[in-house]
């Protein structure tokens, strides 16, 4: 049973990353009509940013948790201003191709300087060690990742679904021209939205640095799994992305316990099943 709980926890952690990343993809897709293929590369940049902050500037985990997403978010906004904005009005697929190119550049540059091996990032002192819950041993850092990701996800949901800013955002998604007529600066909002989505990816990167090590290709395979998550959950609903992300992480964890050979493929197989049964995805809205 110990092993089962341990795999469930791993599943929840992976689920946190799926949720944070697919949430960002959904937010970006809603505003920019772009599937951000660079999301995995930006997640990796978040982890590297935390690594640089620690090893160059001596800035530890806690400040990095805020500083790294902001820095990578600003980098994302620069990408949006200089490149992505020129794609407005073109076929969605060009956005996919452009961001794929950006991902190749970012990952290639990092690979040149850091190879393919992992760099260690220590767990902060306050979160070291573990707790005995009676039925399992819980490493505190892993518990923290799950709880904190959940809080960030719910916070993002609240920001978009329940605040005035979020209402403007959703309105601009529906009808940008009309929203502009109300005097709201839609292009600036688009840039900030991209920054927000990228920041969420970078945050996931910082969270994963002490667990998965910091590697140039850490986001490359992850992003494809997240695409499958997005196909399963659909991008129409923020809450849908969060729930699907966590649920698929847990299912993957269970598979690791019961049938480890399929743990790499289970999310893709589930995607196939969902497409066969309910082609429009679980949340049902297609775009």
């Amino acid at each position: 049973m110990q092993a089962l709980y341990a795999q469930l926890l791993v599943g929840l952690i992976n689920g946190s990353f799926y949720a944070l990343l697919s949430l960002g993809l959904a937010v970006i897709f809603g505003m920019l009509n772009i599937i951000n293929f660079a999301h995995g590369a930006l997640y990796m940049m978040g982890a590297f940013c935390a690594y640089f902050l620690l090893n160059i500037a001596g800035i530890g985990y806690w400040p990095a948790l805020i500083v790294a997403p902001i820095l990578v978010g600003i980098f994302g906004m620069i990408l949006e201003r200089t490149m992505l904005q020129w794609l407005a009005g073109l076929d969605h697929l060009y956005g996919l191709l452009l961001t794929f190119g950006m991902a190749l550049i970012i990952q290639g540059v990092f690979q040149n300087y850091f190879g393919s091996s992992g760099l260690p990032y220590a767990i902060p002192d306050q979160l070291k060690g573990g707790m005995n819950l009676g039925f399992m041993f819980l490493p505190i850092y892993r518990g923290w990742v799950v709880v904190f990701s959940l809080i960030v996800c719910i916070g993002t949901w609240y920001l978009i679904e329940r605040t005035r800013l979020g209402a403007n955002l959703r309105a601009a998604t529906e009808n940008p021209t009309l929203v502009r007529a109300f005097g709201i600066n839609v292009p600036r909002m688009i840039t900030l939205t991209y920054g927000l989505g990228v920041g969420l990816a970078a945050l996931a990167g910082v969270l994963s640095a002490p667990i998965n090590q910091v590697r140039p290709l850490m986001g490359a395979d992850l992003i494809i799994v997240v695409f499958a998550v997005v196909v399963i959950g659909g991008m129409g609903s923020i809450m849908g992305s969060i729930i699907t992300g966590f649920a698929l992480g847990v299912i993957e964890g269970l598979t690791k316990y019961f049938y480890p050979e399929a743990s790499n493929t289970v999310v893709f197989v589930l995607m196939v099943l969902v497409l066969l049964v309910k082609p429009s995805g679980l949340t049902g809205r297609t775009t």
Partner: protein
Amino acid sequence: MTAMTDATVPVTTRTLRDEIIAFAVMAALLVIVPFTGIYPYFVMQALCFALLACAFNLLIGYGGLLSFGHAMFLGTAGYVTAHALKVWGVSPEFGILAGIIAAAGLGVITGLIAIRRQGIYFAMITLALSQLLYFIYLQTPFTHGEDGIQGIPQGYLFGIFNLGNPTILYYVILAGFLFGFLVIFRTINSPFGEVLKAIRENEPRAISLGYKTDQYKLLAYILSGTLAGFAGALKVFVAQNASLTDVHWSMSGEIVLMTLVGGLGTVFGPVVGAFVIIAMQQYLAGFGQWVTVIQGVIFVVCVLTFRRGVIGEIAHYFRRSL
């Protein structure tokens, strides 16, 4: 919404004549390659990728469907052909046939799944499906995991042509490429191809005219996958191995890049694109990961400033369709 390709030039008998002339020039240039001293393996490799890119282009350029998983056809056909040649010891023609049949079967299965969603989702689904196959091939014993299938015998095609001879192999590969190219060319100019273009331009309208668009798209997908598999089977004789690289997502990305550079939705663009990208990889082989960076830069530059591609720009300049 601007479609991925803008066919501003109407197809007339004159443009068809242009295309036939261009085809004759291309075929003539390729036939004389062995007499020019150009390294034949480079051209053979480029021809395999050119056929692959043409097959991919049939789907995106004429059906409007972006497959981000076309490497799965290349890899699957490659593995099956390699396995048939090495383990079953069949002759080359049956090895190629086995690879094509495997790719066609894969096309039917993945097509039925992927065709259920449109546009951006279609791209993500095909990418996820190819990643699924990548993990399967990583784990199944017959592919030999990271090592791949190596030392594949080339044998005698139809019992006469010794594929171990580079010149004979070259003409066999060239014949395969030209055959595949003509199949695609014929498809594009057939009534079926016209319906595909109609679906790309305005799917609801095509449906309202009574076309079962899903069936057309599925058929185009299967045809494209089968021809990509043909390219994969031919590539086995050139590379004499089949490995995981051919199924990896980065390979799918390269196929997209070749077509984009040459010109999406142009007849000859993918061929030019394949030669450009393969030549670039050859010359920059010593630069390690910078090749990836350069490919990324080409992607970005093409999408931002050069969406018609090489052949698309030429065709646009001369107001012709190529």
